[in-house]
């Protein structure tokens, strides 16, 4: 790679693709060709760089100059001014929202400066389609070290000592799971990578697979060596076709180079990996359901024990870990277990990737040391709430998690602290909500999700979540009754203790945690028939302010239900019985005479 004078990284993560990065790339290549620079500057299409809402993004090396919101017509200027002239194009730099100062380098940007990237170490840095670039970043060195210098037990011991816990949700110690699988009698054994990423709002696994697929392949191969497996499966959700495509290519390259296949790197160890694509079922992220799905059946979970480590795929011992868990492995093997021990908190070692989304300025992917506070994540990395609005809650753990209110913003993010609050770490989805989000409606949203995704095998989940959803729907329609909150709590606790799998056991969490912290909002819906956030349509009231109304009659014309009446040039009124709360009148009134309550 030395023969190039510089590199231009083009982020091709899902966010940037939707903001048109391929057009920018095309313009860039055309401009380089025009100036005869194709041999001097290499254009590298990378996985997600992280700051999704600033896309399309370009990073120019040497220097690491970070250009944001680049349009195709900006590219010529970057090429002539910066690449040829050596002058940074200031107007395309990121401006610090606090000081208004232009920040030139990627690592000066607050979004990145608090991060520590282990699982995402190569994401947005290398071309995911190039095994050479991965190898240049110490890729496959950990596998070589494991095969040549370590015994399988040494490898397991390293992972155990590192304190690494599963990043897929439950936080089970990874080393222990590896040990159980290695110790379990029976052959063959399997290694499975859970890339189902079901939490709607989380996209770190996708970014790792798309941005650094070899790290997962290398880790699974090391795991195969450690537990005594010769075959691995990656179970990817069907919504991620690009991940499947990049992983497929990476697998071929690894086979060609002898990192997969027979007698890897001259050892006696053979291993290969197959991709299996899901078919749209959230419950398939649960490990026993996922195994059933790989076997070709309906993805229904089964009771545990036996755990997959003892009896998994086709009844054989199976190690199943999440994508992000695997992505940590090569770094631990190379740097030693003591290195990870130094990072994070006492019980939660290392880092966690969070997908920051919702009502926050900087949406995207950020990897921070465990123990970073929620406040740092939302306000420093995330840049706070847009439009001067007030922070209301952060939702972690998706449909299995809970909402954390403002008073707990200083909670350190680790497994124990989050579950103490009734939330969970989950896979790292972090949805920020502001004063305009209704917590009852959010709880209803999650229940609708779990109800929809319940596989129907056990009654508490199938029927219980339906009853809870019915109550919540009533609340948002203004038909709540005294006693509904208590009913929700009783039902929720019952489902938690009796459902068959984690889906049902955690489904009530979003409801119970919002009742715990936002009971007043539930009460407003029930007793005052009012939605404080102004979200629940049926509870809204539109009224005409007499002093402002000019009697122009425009609202009468746009009202689909003929709920507005009044003489021309006289004050109009809305008939609340007829009003369908569509909001047409509010958006059309030229005098701002319509108010929403």
């Amino acid at each position, binding site marked *: 790679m030395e023969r190039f004078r510089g590199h231009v990284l083009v982020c091709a993560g899902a966010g940037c693709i939707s903001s048109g990065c391929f057009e920018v790339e095309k313009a860039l290549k055309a401009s380089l060709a025009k100036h005869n620079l194709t041999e001097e500057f290499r254009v590298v299409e990378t996985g997600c760089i992280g700051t999704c809402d600033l896309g399309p993004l370009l990073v120019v090396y040497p220097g690491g100059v970070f250009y944001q919101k680049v349009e195709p017509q900006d590219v010529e200027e970057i090429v002539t001014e910066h690449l040829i002239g050596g002058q940074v194009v200031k107007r395309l730099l990121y401006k610090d929202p606090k000081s208004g100062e232009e920040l030139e380098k990627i690592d000066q940007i607050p979004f990145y400066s608090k991060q520590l990237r282990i699982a995402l170490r190569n994401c947005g840095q290398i071309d995911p389609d190039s095994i050479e670039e991965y190898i240049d970043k110490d890729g496959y060195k950990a596998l070589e070290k494991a095969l040549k210098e370590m015994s399988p037990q040494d490898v397991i011991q390293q992972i155990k000592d590192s304190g690494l816990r599963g990043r897929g949700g439950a936080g089970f110690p990874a080393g222990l799971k590896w040990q159980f699988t290695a110790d379990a009698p029976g052959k063959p054994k399997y290694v499975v990578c859970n890339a189902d990423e079901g939490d*709607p709002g989380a*996209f770190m696994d996708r970014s790792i697979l798309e941005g650094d697929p070899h790290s997962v392949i290398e880790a699974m191969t090391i795991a195969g060596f450690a537990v005594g497996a010769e075959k691995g499966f990656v179970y990817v959700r069907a919504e991620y076709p690009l991940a499947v495509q990049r992983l497929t290519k990476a697998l071929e390259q690894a086979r060609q180079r002898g990192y997969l296949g027979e007698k890897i790197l001259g050892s006696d160890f053979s291993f290969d990996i197959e991709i299996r694509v899901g078919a749209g079922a959230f419950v398939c992220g649960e490990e026993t359901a996922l195994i059933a799905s790989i076997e*070709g059946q309906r993805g229904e979970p089964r009771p545990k024990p036996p755990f997959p480590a003892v009896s998994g795929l086709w009844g054989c011992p199976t190690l199943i870990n999440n994508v992000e868990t695997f992505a940590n492995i090569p770094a631990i093997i190379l740097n030693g277990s003591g290195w990870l021990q130094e990072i994070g908190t006492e019980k939660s070692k290392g880092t966690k990737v969070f997908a920051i989304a919702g009502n926050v300025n900087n949406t995207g992917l950020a990897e921070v040391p465990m123990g970073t506070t929620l406040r740092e994540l939302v306000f420093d990395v995330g840049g706070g709430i847009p439009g001067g609005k007030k922070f209301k809650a952060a939702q972690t753990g998706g449909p299995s998690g809970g909402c954390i209110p403002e008073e707990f913003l200083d909670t350190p993010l680790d497994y124990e602290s989050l579950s103490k609050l009734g939330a969970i770490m989950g896979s790292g989805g972090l949805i920020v909500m502001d004063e305009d989000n209704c917590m009852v409606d959010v709880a209803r949203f999650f229940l609708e999700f779990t109800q929809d995704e319940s596989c129907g095998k056990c009654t508490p989940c199938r029927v219980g979540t339906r009853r809870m959803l019915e109550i919540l729907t009533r609340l948002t329609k203004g038909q709540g009754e005294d006693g509904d909150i208590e009913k929700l709590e009783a039902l929720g606790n019952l489902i938690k203790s009796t459902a068959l799998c984690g889906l049902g056991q955690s489904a009530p969490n979003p409801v119970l945690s919002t009742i715990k912290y936002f009971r007043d909002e539930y009460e407003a819906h029930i007793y005052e028939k009012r939605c404080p956030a102004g979200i629940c349509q049926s509870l809204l009231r539109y009224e005409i302010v007499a002093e402002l109304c000019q009697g122009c009659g425009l609202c009468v014309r746009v009202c689909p239900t003929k709920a507005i009446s009044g003489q021309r040039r006289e004050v109009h009124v809305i008939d609340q019985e007829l009003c369908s709360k569509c909001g047409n009148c509010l958006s059309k009134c030229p005098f701002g005479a319509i108010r929403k309550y």
Partner: protein
Amino acid sequence: MGNCQCTTKASDPRWQKLDEILAEWRDKPGNVIPVLHKAQELFGYLPREVQEYVAAGLGVPVTEVYGVVTFYSLFTMQPKGRHTISLCMGTACYVKGAQAILDALREQLGVGPGETTEDARFTFEVMRCMGACGLAPVLVVDEDIYGKVTPEGLAEILEKYE
């Protein structure tokens, strides 16, 4: 499904392709879902006839194939429109106003989620997160991803697909 399709089977390359897929996967464990994915790619959907053919080809009961098809939301037994609109109703998109987009789409298309317009131009679906949460609300038409969608901007997007 109509018998007419059976009589043309021999001349329809899709069935020949399906035969090849079945031969490739027949002896692999856990083959039902991968084969159904490929069959749906070929035919656009999974009518009963295709399910029966897959079952016979893999040597598994039709009930098992049907059980799998009905369990997974991505498998469909209804033919699709020329274009598929998938609106993300994941958490990030929901808190950024995906419900308003859904209502607007319903109005503009005249059909609800899971349905196809009468002229077979669009099939309207909702999905749960396609991993572009940073640009919520997100809409996907065929292979094209649109971020930060607004109800007002929908018409312009739909126009591009005939």
